[in-house]
């Protein structure tokens, strides 16, 4: 690998101050740092340093996302093949079809998001941040497989520029950029995000409307006289199926098991906060129990453990709520933040007839509230300190 290093050293001067390609210096720096760790030494403070850096943290999140990605690819292909009644479609065909659906989305997400990241880095003369590695991968995972590529491009542009770069880039953002991108599409191009969009179609083939609905969509639109219990009893909605995830839905979020695998990676490596994940689950279950006890709407009658595997909750709690930049930073704040996310998910699901799913909005809302929660926790801490003195 020495020759790459030598090559970089040979052309480095072109990208440094005064060089021919000075304007795009950050691109060279990013490529250079991608192949080899930087050569910087500790010049002040501690003279020896931990091997960890942000790049490795971000890449670990990508690895944690792989189960969701792989399952999502297979599932998108499988749903397509089933809907189009391609009878002899096997595993390989499902995966190929899935890749045809998913890969363009990922490429658009990285290419467009990367464009903005590089543009801002070059103008602001700061190194290209690693945050995009995760945002660019998370975003396609929470899109329906039918989303037009141009909408994905507009969405990620909004998320990266308005959600992150105008605040100063990775580490400075208030809300999760990937989630904000999705929220933008959700409100700007509502037709692409609601209704019969969860199974990719070739356009000319009519897709059966029932197979194209997500479990939460089914439950929220039950015909008159059919209760939630009936729907569960006749197999329209099944816990096991939601756990495994071979269902219509956003690409990466359908399988709770894949999300659990991701959670295992994030928790074992200590990248994500276990407090937030646990608090989300506790908030969800306790509010769902309350709703089941006192609620009267049909959605409140869903068995509470169904909420854990339904919709995007598992994915949101594992990958979105735990984003360290937009989540609460204090230990107590993390508990409150997570609990309220879980609670709001149920509030939206059960009380709001318009939206069968509320994970995205709950997390975004709590992202906005996180600084407030932290401020309360810090104030409490400071009051305690003053008392001690």
């Amino acid at each position: 690998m020495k020759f790459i290093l030598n090559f970089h050293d040979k052309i480095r001067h072109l990208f440094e101050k005064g060089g021919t390609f000075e304007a795009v210096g950050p691109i060279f720096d990013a490529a250079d740092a991608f192949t080899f760790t930087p050569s910087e030494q500790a010049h002040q403070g501690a003279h020896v340093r931990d091997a960890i850096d942000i790049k490795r943290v971000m890449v670990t999140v990508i690895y944690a996302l792989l189960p969701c990605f792989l399952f999502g690819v297979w599932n998108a292909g499988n749903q397509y093949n089933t809907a189009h009644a391609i009878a002899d479609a096997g595993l390989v065909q499902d995966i190929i079809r899935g890749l045809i659906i998913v890969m363009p989305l990922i490429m658009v997400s990285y290419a467009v998001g990367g464009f903005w990241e590089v543009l801002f880095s070059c103008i602001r003369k700061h190194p290209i941040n690693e945050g995009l590695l995760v945002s660019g991968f998370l975003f396609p995972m929470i899109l329906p497989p039918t989303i037009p590529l141009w909408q994905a491009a507009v969405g990620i542009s909004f998320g990266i520029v308005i959600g992150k770069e105008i605040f100063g880039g990775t580490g400075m953002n208030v809300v999760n950029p990937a989630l904000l991108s999705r929220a933008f599409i959700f409100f700007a191009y509502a037709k692409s995000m609601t209704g019969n969009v969860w199974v990719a179609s070739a356009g000319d083939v009519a897709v059966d409307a029932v197979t194209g609905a997500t479990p939460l969509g089914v439950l929220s639109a039950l015909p008159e006289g059919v209760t939630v219990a009936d729907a569960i009893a006749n197999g329209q909605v099944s816990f096991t199926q939601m756990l495994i995830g071979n269902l219509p839905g956003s690409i990466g979020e359908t399988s709770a098991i894949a999300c659990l695998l991701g959670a295992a990676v994030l928790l074992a490596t200590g990248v994500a906060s276990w407090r937030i994940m646990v608090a989300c689950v506790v908030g969800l279950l306790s509010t769902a129990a309350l709703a089941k006890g006192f609620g009267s709407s049909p959605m409140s009658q869903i068995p509470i453990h169904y909420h854990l595997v339904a919709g995007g909750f598992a994915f949101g709690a594992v990958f979105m709520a735990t984003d360290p930049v937009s989540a609460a930073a204090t230990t107590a704040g993390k508990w409150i933040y997570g609990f309220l996310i879980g609670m709001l998910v149920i509030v939206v699901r059960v009380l709001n007839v318009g939206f069968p799913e509320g994970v995205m909005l709950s997390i975004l809302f709590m992202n906005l509230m996180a600084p407030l929660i932290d401020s309360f926790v810090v104030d409490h801490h400071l009051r305690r300190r003053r008392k001690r003195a």
Partner: protein
Amino acid sequence: MGTTGEDRSLLLPGESKKIPFLGEFSLQCRLRYGQIPRLAVLPEWAEKTDKRDWHVDFVVKKGFDIALAGKPSTSIVDAPVSETVAVCPLEFDGMKQRLKVSEGDIVRKGSELMEDKVHPAFKLRAPAGGKVVEVVRGDRRFVEQIVIAVDPASEPEVFQAFPAESIASLNRQVILDQLVATGALSLIRQRPFSGMADVAVTPKSIFVNAMNTGPFQADAETVVHDDPVGFQAGLDLLIPLTEGAVHLCMGENAGETLKAAQRVTLHHFRGPHPAGNSSVHIARVDPMAPTDVVWTVKAVDVVVLGRLFLDGAFPESRIISLGGSNVKPGANQHYRVRMGGDLKPLLEGALCDGEHRVVSGDVLSGAAIPLDSHLRLRQSALTVVAADCERHFMGWTMPGLLQMSFSRLFVSSWLPWKRDWKLGTNLHGEERALVLTGHYDKVMPLDIMVDFLIRAVMAGDSDEAISHGILETDPEDFALCDFVCPSKVEVQAIIRQGLEQIAEEGI
């Protein structure tokens, strides 16, 4: 603030009480009226499994001991004789320099070399007699080193000497005058601002640190055992300086000499680094309010202070530790060196091949010094590690068997066996925005929210920083934050900058 004074104390720190079935309780801070006691509980079963004949007063949980290669052994050998000595005025931070000698002057041991323009009573004195051969100047013509060629025949300048028994009953002013006039005051540090002690203030208490958990600090027991009389004399002269107690804080492996110290309060701490930092001791034993002043001294420096009063002159030599991964195995031990002596004879033949970084002090919070300079007077440790700028192919995704990390992101962190790491100066990344929050708290045993403290400092909000407790700390307390930070934020530098800003503005 609660009411101070012995008369209102219900129990003294360190006192313990046995309660049947519950175990032994000991007081963590002085108990006052209206104050909730904080108790250390040591269950009876723990005591049974514990072979020691004394118990630990304070257990520090948060922190991290970096397993570094090159730990100095406790043997003491005489270092090769150094033919030059030097004083490096920059280590006496905040001193406004007025040079009193020039190149070619003949000085005696103890002669004045430089004085402080602001406090002219404070002087830097020659650690050995001879001829001033060089005055090295650096940026803005600050004097970096005053080098003296040692003349063994030179007669030392003598200050007042005191008999050992009388030191404890000396007048406070007499002690302070001698400390100021000899420059030895710089061995006593003051909180807040972690600068040199201010003689105009009487400190609430004095903390003597005999437990350096920072990697490769000189071992207190080893140094003190070499001169127990000097150590006790040093402790005695501290007693009149404070209105409160002199606290001697030591680790669980403290030896008999330390435990035999008289007329001071002993505290035993257990835990990973930074359990040995004075800030942790202060916070646990006798917490500070923002207006309090506390002095701290290292136990190894107490010996120097004691000798100064017993002999009426600075000792010619002191004991320092030499450690680090670039020191040849066998050479990592304690050395008796000339005060301010040349590094060359000490390090010649003791280092491995390659590029070195020489650190005066411990590798986490010390200062880098050139290989051709001299020992610093205030530091009792010398660490040499590899200057490492090696680049690793695809470091962000390689398994990381040979990478050392506090996190669990590398395979090495998962291996069941432990090893000593030869860490160099590689930063292993580039500076980024703060992304992982709460990361620092895992290595911060003080009741401080590091993320919010450094944000307050970065925003220039001194009031906020003070209420977050910056005045109780020293930059060294944040050394592990520097170490573990994935964004490579220089936390120590930020805290130092914050302290300087507050000192400038005044509280």
